[in-house]
């Protein structure tokens, strides 16, 4: 029977390095995807994910299982992502307005992952790519906290209570935050929403 996250973390605390490798195996993909969708750069997402795991490792001796492991993990990740986005925003402000802006430079990361054989029809592939681009841009346009809430809710499937703890707000405030985010997405994605089967 697989050990729980908390048990693995307690084993890491006791000095079992193998348990840390198991936690890494369990959470590296969800974490990298969450961070990638937050910061929109693959390399930056991986750097941040490394930092998250490193902080977990550094805190192993002081670990107390007072909350779910995922709450703790994604709280670290969310804080790092929000700080990184703020730092990037200040850096961007310093760049000359004459510099060419590449808003979609990281789209290539995903394109390379799309296996050509899955899309024998090039036209269909282009349509799907355009849809994905539109969805990504709609998420990118959300305010940072709303974006984090949507990603944690939709892709990590965490409980409302857990997401509220990660974002340091009440459960009721989180539901309002998510409502506003989905309202924005509904408007931004209206052309695609209209095509969706009901």
């Amino acid at each position, binding site marked *: 029977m697989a050990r729980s996250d908390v048990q693995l973390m307690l084993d890491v605390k006791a000095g079992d390095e193998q348990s840390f490798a198991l936690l890494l195996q369990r959470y590296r993909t969800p974490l990298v995807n969450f961070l990638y969708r937050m910061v929109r750069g693959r390399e930056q997402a991986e750097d941040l994910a*490394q930092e998250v795991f490193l902080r977990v490792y550094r805190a192993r001796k002081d670990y107390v299982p007072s909350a779910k492991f995922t709450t703790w993990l994604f709280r670290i990740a969310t804080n790092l992502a929000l700080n990184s986005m703020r730092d990037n925003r200040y850096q961007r402000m310093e760049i000359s307005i004459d510099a060419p802006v590449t808003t979609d430079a990281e789209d290539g990361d995903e394109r390379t992952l799309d296996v050509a054989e899955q899309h024998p029809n090039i036209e269909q592939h282009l349509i799907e790519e355009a849809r994905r681009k539109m*969805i990504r841009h709609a998420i990118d346009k959300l305010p940072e906290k709303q974006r984090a809430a949507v990603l944690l809710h*939709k892709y990590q499937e965490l409980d409302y209570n857990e997401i509220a703890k990660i974002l340091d707000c009440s459960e009721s405030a989180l539901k309002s935050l998510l409502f506003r985010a989905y309202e924005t997405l509904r408007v931004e994605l209206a052309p695609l929403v209209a095509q969706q089967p009901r």
Partner: protein
Amino acid sequence: MSCNRMENRILPYVDGRLKENERREVETHLESCAACRLRANEFRAVTGLLDELPVIEPSAAFDTRLHARVAAEPVKRSLWGWFAPSPRVAFAASLLVAATFWLGSFSPTPPAIAQDDIPVLENYDVLSNFEPLTELPQPVQADDADQQNQQM
């Protein structure tokens, strides 16, 4: 239920995360409110669209890089560990103690009693323990002698 109260319930309803009684309340409202019904359907459509984003895999070097960073982490010492000397410090302290004892073995011995002084010391010893001498009156100090002379 009013449309305002639907704000916090519509997404949990779409997710299927409402309790049974809450779900029935929402459904009753949706039957009579076209705007909220439309919103619920469109929220469901949005969650479907979000599913279209592909999942990326971390690069092959991710684990290797992380394990290297973890291995490079300094080892944390406990409070007792902090008091325990490192092998180098312990070795240096032992050397210092050994050197102190070794140098101590070269320190000068107390000066020997000169051969000429031995008879004098023997005489002093004999005189200080000679009984007839202890019965004699105590010697008079110079100041006391002056006082006695004045009284006479």
